[in-house]
């Protein structure tokens, strides 16, 4: 059985609205998978999560989570899921431990079991020594860690993480990533996360669905998605005030298989770019184009997004 099955799911906030926040989506998530929804802000990721977690009603279509219909079997869905919301959802008048205790009781976990699981969860996210202070004294990284602990304390089948590392510093992000991998491996829980950060999706996810305007425009493993752009990429930063900006000359190079121009950057696709850079420099020099910097790289999910939408993700 799939952990999640979504069929032709649509959400419109306003019946007169022609734009759907989630637009006839269909996909499946297998059990035990870490599944990522990658896309810019406003792509519909959070709306989709809210529908799957019973916080919003879909306009049409159907979705099941752990085999239960999100519309008709809300309570069964709620029993089967854990959630870490985008904004903190802690009670600041309670300590970390009390927040976990509140949660465990709401999910009907018995006393002995409760204490054991709270202890384990605190240990996993390394908050044992901060467990008894009020959560309004927590840093945002600590809050997120506590929420991740809370998300799996009742042993859910599917754990939803909405932008789990948004607004956190690099070091904390790394730690959160490790906790997520740990939880996935240890508890065999299916994880669905949303992110607009390419490296996050790349590092964590078994499969990634790229979302834009309420639709999934590509869905595969990060590796396969990147293989769609098999060649190397060379980005040139040009001096736009330079003597010439006739970037068309790069097209005339026979080894360039694809050409994109973007805000003073030119991206060229080719095989064995390491051998081609001298020739590119030569052409630029002859055309009078001033190159400020050169960047050679293997394709990333960012390039995949660009490939499908013609836009960068942060715009």
């Amino acid at each position: 059985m799939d952990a999640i099955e979504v069929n032709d799911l649509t959400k419109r906030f306003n019946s007169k609205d022609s734009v759907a926040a989630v637009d006839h989506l269909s996909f499946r998530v297998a059990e035990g998978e870490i599944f990522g929804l990658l896309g810019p802000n406003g792509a519909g990721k959070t709306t989709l999560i809210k529908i799957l977690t019973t916080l919003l009603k879909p306009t049409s279509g159907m979705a099941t989570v752990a085999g239960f219909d999100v519309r008709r079997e809300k309570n069964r869905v709620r029993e089967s899921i854990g959630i870490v919301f985008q904004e903190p959802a802690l009670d600041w008048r309670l300590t970390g431990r009390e927040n976990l205790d509140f949660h465990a009781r709401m999910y009907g976990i018995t006393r002995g079991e409760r204490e054991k699981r709270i202890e384990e969860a605190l240990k996993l996210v390394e908050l044992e020594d901060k467990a008894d202070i009020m959560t309004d004294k927590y840093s945002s990284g600590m809050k997120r860690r506590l929420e991740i602990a809370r998300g799996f304390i009742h042993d859910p089948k599917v754990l939803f993480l909405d932008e789990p590392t948004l607004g956190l510093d690099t070091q904390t992000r790394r730690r959160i990533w490790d906790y997520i991998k740990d939880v996935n491996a240890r508890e065999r829980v299916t994880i669905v996360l949303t992110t607009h950060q390419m490296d996050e999706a790349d590092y964590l996810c078994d499969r990634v669905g790229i979302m834009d305007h309420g639709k999934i425009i590509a869905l595969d493993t990060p590796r396969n998605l990147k293989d769609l752009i098999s060649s190397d990429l060379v980005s040139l930063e040009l001096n736009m005030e330079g003597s010439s900006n006739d970037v068309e000359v790069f097209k005339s190079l026979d080894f360039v298989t694809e050409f994109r121009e973007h805000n003073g950057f030119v991206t060229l696709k080719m095989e064995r770019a390491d051998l081609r850079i001298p020739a590119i420099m030569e052409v630029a020099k002859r055309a009078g184009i001033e190159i400020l910097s050169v960047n050679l790289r293997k394709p990333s999910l960012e390039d995949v997004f660009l490939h499908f939408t013609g836009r960068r993700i942060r715009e």
Partner: protein
Amino acid sequence: MGISWQAIYVLWLREMKGMWRAKSRVIGSLGMPMFFLAFLGLGFGGASIPGMPAGLQYIEYLTPGIIGMSMLFSSVFAGISVLWDKEFGFLKEVMVAPVSRLSLVLGRTAGGSTVALMQGIMVLFLSTLLGFKIAGVVPVIVALLFMCLISVTFVGLGLVFASVMRDMHGFPLIMNFVVFPTFLLSGALFPIGALPSWLIPVCYLDPLTYGVDGLRGVLLGAGASDFSILLNFMVISAISIGMVSVGSFLFERTEVER
């Protein structure tokens, strides 16, 4: 879907912890009822109030009204403060829990009512310092029952408002146009019989009228109330059940956010 006692208990427990950690605020909120009691009691102590039962001091007449007032205010506020949970994100955590919406409403009502009840009890005992005489243990126990019903009714009303309001911005409006008229028309300060006849039916629609009148009958003797204690009890019981039902019906339909 059934009732989850564990969920009701933990929602109540959360409210108790919140109250305990904000002790000073709870005690501070006794200021207004005590000033009302002290200064209205002093100011009108010698006046002859039209329609007031014979043989009663004004402070005696006033005390049940002020108990009702302080419980009205803190109950409505406790109900509406669900909107604070929404603001701080915690409501989502509550709404995705696998418990019936009725359990959520009951837990919230239990917590808010307990806080209001504590305040009512404190006002009752502080009023003895101002000359109010408590007639015995039994009247106090029956009075507590009435106080429970008053607080459940108005926590329920607060929850109804919370489920149709987007945020806390509408709160002053509710205070001015719902809570204050409810207080002033309940007979808390003066007998409603003194009002023009066209206004009296409005007083009879006010749930607090039956709460305050019931408290008066219980604490001061049957001669002090307009209606019989039993009638007051039945009316306010029915209203409190109705309020909680409407509250949980509206909660069932709520989408946490858009």
